[in-house]
């Protein structure tokens, strides 16, 4: 018997099969368009969640090594209270401790703008030296030496934007109803936008000015930070602090990094709920594909068998139909989510992170894309979807052609 003729080389045959598959897709264009849109949306949601949480985690860790080794808080009744000066001397005498710094910081709520500012007290002259000077956009008021040093402050970009709305961009009046008089603070600079994610809501002022605004008594501090040069000793020193003073809580840098690692992990409400919704929607999509062909599709396979198509080619057609939809959806979903997060700054999604804040950064995030995750998304979506299309087609292809054509 003569060998049957074949239509060109392997590449040309596959191209013909792809042509036929695309014709099949266009024949059912409404249904396939909806499947494509849903598929793109599912991958878009998964990628967006992974991108935004990955970028925020990178931002958290970018400065983690500059954190204090141990932060010490005083707890009464399970709540943080101010810590007194006598702890400072006792902790600094523990062997292995290089330095202990008491800190004065807290929050100031401005009712008119419904904004919470973070007030931080420090020696402002430190920010006028070396690298620190280059992280601030200094105002002309910096040179005004007649102003008392404790009534100057440097603010974050978000604070600056809010204060411009109430025409207080050069100076700000702190006032509470129980005070005798308002306290004016001259704004001598704004932190640069590169530090926005850390400094957006910050008002950094001299320690004595912060103490006045936060109404902290002399000798009281918000917390202490302990510097330990040998990282191997940090846990032991933290344990000693807790043993000597059971009312104190220590937060080591390792614990803060552990919190950073788990802040946006899969067990968090936002990530878990997004992923569960996407997984169930995708399972519904796959189930629809695997549950069988429509009568029209079965009849089409029957006719193809009747005119001489073999099972292998029919399966190739069905595989290409699903593969084309899934690969386009995967690539398009991932690319659209990249532009959504890093070009458009995640409108809609960032509001979930911002919550009820009136003071929030612009969400200009650094992209952090793990190729392994992208490959995982593509593998977990494309392969099952393409494979699920093959099985019902195989069942129809091995069924008697006469039976299919008579019963459909």
């Amino acid at each position, binding site marked *: 018997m003569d060998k049957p003729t074949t239509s060109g080389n392997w590449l040309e045959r596959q191209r013909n099969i792809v042509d036929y598959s695309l014709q099949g897709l266009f024949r059912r264009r409404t249904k396939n368009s909806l499947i494509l849109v849903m598929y793109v949306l599912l991958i878009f949601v998964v990628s967006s969640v992974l991108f935004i949480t990955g970028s925020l985690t990178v931002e958290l860790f970018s*400065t983690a090594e500059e*954190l204090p080794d141990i932060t010490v808080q005083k707890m009464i009744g399970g709540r943080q209270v101010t810590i007194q000066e006598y702890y400072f001397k006792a902790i600094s005498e523990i062997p292995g401790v290089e330095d202990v710094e008491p800190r004065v910081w807290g929050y100031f709520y401005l009712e008119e703008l419904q904004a919470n500012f973070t007030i931080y007290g420090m020696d402002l002259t430190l920010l006028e030296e070396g*690298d620190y000077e280059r992280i601030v956009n200094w105002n002309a008021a910096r040179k005004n030496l007649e102003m008392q040093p404790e009534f100057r402050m440097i603010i974050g970009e978000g604070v600056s934007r809010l204060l411009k709305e109430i025409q207080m961009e050069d100076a700000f009046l702190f006032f509470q109803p129980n005070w005798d008089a308002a306290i004016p603070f001259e704004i001598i600079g704004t932190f640069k936008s590169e530090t926005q994610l850390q400094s957006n809501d910050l008002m950094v002022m001299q320690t004595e000015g912060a103490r006045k605004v936060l109404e902290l008594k002399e000798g009281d501090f918000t917390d202490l930070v302990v510097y330990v040069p040998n990282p191997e000793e940090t846990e032991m020193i933290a344990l000693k602090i807790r043993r000597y003073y059971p009312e104190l809580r220590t*937060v080591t840098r390792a614990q803060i990094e552990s919190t950073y690692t788990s802040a946006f992990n899969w067990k968090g409400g936002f990530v878990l709920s997004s992923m569960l919704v996407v997984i169930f929607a995708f399972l519904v999509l796959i189930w629809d594909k695997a549950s069988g062909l429509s009568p029209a599709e079965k009849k089409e396979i029957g006719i193809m068998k009747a005119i001489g198509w073999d099972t292998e080619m029919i399966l190739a057609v069905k595989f290409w139909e699903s593969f084309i939809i899934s690969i386009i959806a995967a690539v398009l979903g991932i*690319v659209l989510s990249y532009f959504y997060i890093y*070009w458009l700054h995640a409108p809609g999604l960032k509001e979930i992170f*911002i919550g009820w804040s009136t003071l929030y950064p612009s969400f200009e995030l650094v992209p952090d894309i793990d190729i392994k995750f992208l490959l995982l998304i593509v593998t977990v979506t494309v392969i099952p979807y393409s494979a699920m299309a093959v099985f019902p087609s195989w069942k129809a292809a091995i069924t008697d052609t006469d039976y299919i054509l008579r019963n459909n």
Partner: protein
Amino acid sequence: MRHSSKLGITLLALLLLVLVAAVDYQHKRREYVENIWMRKSFQRAVGLTDLSITTAARYLRHYSLGDMATPFQDYPASLDHFPAGFVYSPPDFSEFPKPVKFGPLPNLTSN
């Protein structure tokens, strides 16, 4: 034009988008590496933790330093009502003071 040619054009357009995204990614990463010293300098000068993403509540703003009671402090059995609280997993409370110990009572008569 054959359908496979149209598919080829579509895939080329997608590849172009991927290339644009890849170039933008490299550009942003380079910018980040050039400017990271500013973030580190800021962190060294002002040692506060966490990002200024939400300022709705103090336990959300300084997430790593919050205590256990603050999210639920309004009244006994109150729930966390800030929407941004939905986003974060609980922080590391492993070294929180533990004045209450569960287990058998100590034998007061032993020395």
